[in-house]
């Protein structure tokens, strides 16, 4: 049984997770996050996506059978200001009217020693799909939840994000770091 839970996190998410079969885990969305850091002239800009869905089936004992699928609602971008958020939704950037959702789907998950794992998968944004590799570190928090944290880099121009005058990487760098933190409740 898999769970693709709704955008709004709630107690129901945890209940669903608790009642789910072995392996299927509901991500605690309000404690998890998908952030990004982009370099620009004079500084670095941090943002995040407010709305996303995750379907994570993580099996530390059998990583190969693990699976992770994400759907990110790109218009929910949280940036420095209203002005930059409006700009980010425009055609030159994410073009959220035409491409509202970015997806990530894992293809291979393997242990890389200790509490570290590598998730390879496909990231699709703005009609472009690329292979990405996400190194993830797993730990337990005080409440017994599993916390998975990973960071990987993408080149925004690979996905045609920031076209036209924005393609100049001396103002906004090509490379963007994406930081993911997923909190998974204990299962079984």
């Amino acid at each position, binding site marked *: 049984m898999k769970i693709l839970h709704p955008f709004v996190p709630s107690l129901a998410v945890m209940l669903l997770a608790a009642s789910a079969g072995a392996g299927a885990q509901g991500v605690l969305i309000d404690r998890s996050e998908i952030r990004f850091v982009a370099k620009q*002239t*004079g500084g*670095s800009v941090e943002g995040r996506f407010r709305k996303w869905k995750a379907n994570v089936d993580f099996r530390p004992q059998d990583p190969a059978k693990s699976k992770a699928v994400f759907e990110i609602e790109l218009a929910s971008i949280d940036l420095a200001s209203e002005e930059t958020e409006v700009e980010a939704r425009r055609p030159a950037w994410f073009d959220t009217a035409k491409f509202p959702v970015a997806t990530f789907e894992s293809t291979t998950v393997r242990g890389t020693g200790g509490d570290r794992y590598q998730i390879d998968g496909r990231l699709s944004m703005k009609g472009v799909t690329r292979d990405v590799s996400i190194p993830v570190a797993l730990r337990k928090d005080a409440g017994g939840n599993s916390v998975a944290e990973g960071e990987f880099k993408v080149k925004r121009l690979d996905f045609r994000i920031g076209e036209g005058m924005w393609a100049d990487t001396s103002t*906004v760098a090509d490379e963007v770091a994406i930081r993911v933190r997923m909190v998974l409740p204990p299962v079984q």
Partner: protein
Amino acid sequence: MSAPAGTYTRTAIALHWIAAILIVCNLALGISMINFALSPLKIRLYGWHKWIGITVFLTAAVRILWRFAHPAPSPVAMPAWQRSAARATHAALYVLMFAIPLSGWVYSSATGVSVIYLGLFPLPDLVGKDKVLAGVLWAAHATLNFILFVLVIVHVGAALRHQYVERDDTLRRMLPFARRNPAQVIR
């Protein structure tokens, strides 16, 4: 370098004019850039505005240290109220040279933009990203700049009045290339 009595040191004069040029340019840049439509140029201007602001802060810090080691010359003869007004204005200008860059830095942090000074030195974020706080800090930054704008006019106006109406050489002792009044140099 020690200066003759009645004059500022060359270093103090240089620091004063560096700060003056940077402050006037950054005020003009700050006021104009906010009205631009979002573009790569606007992002670069914001970056430069922050770098200039941090430079003003650093210049002010050096000036304060220099001033402790090399006290400013005693003011020319003037009514007590003018002397008090000058002291208050100078003190306020120093405070603003620290407070305005700081308020801009905190504002930048609150908007989620970390400042990297000259693109080389990352400055720590003073607060976390917070849109409501960012609005308050923007208003504070703008208000402090308005006060600065008024005080700069008072400061320049007073200097010109002393030089050209009172003819007491107040301005001349801060000019970089002006021939000093020989009487002052000897004294």
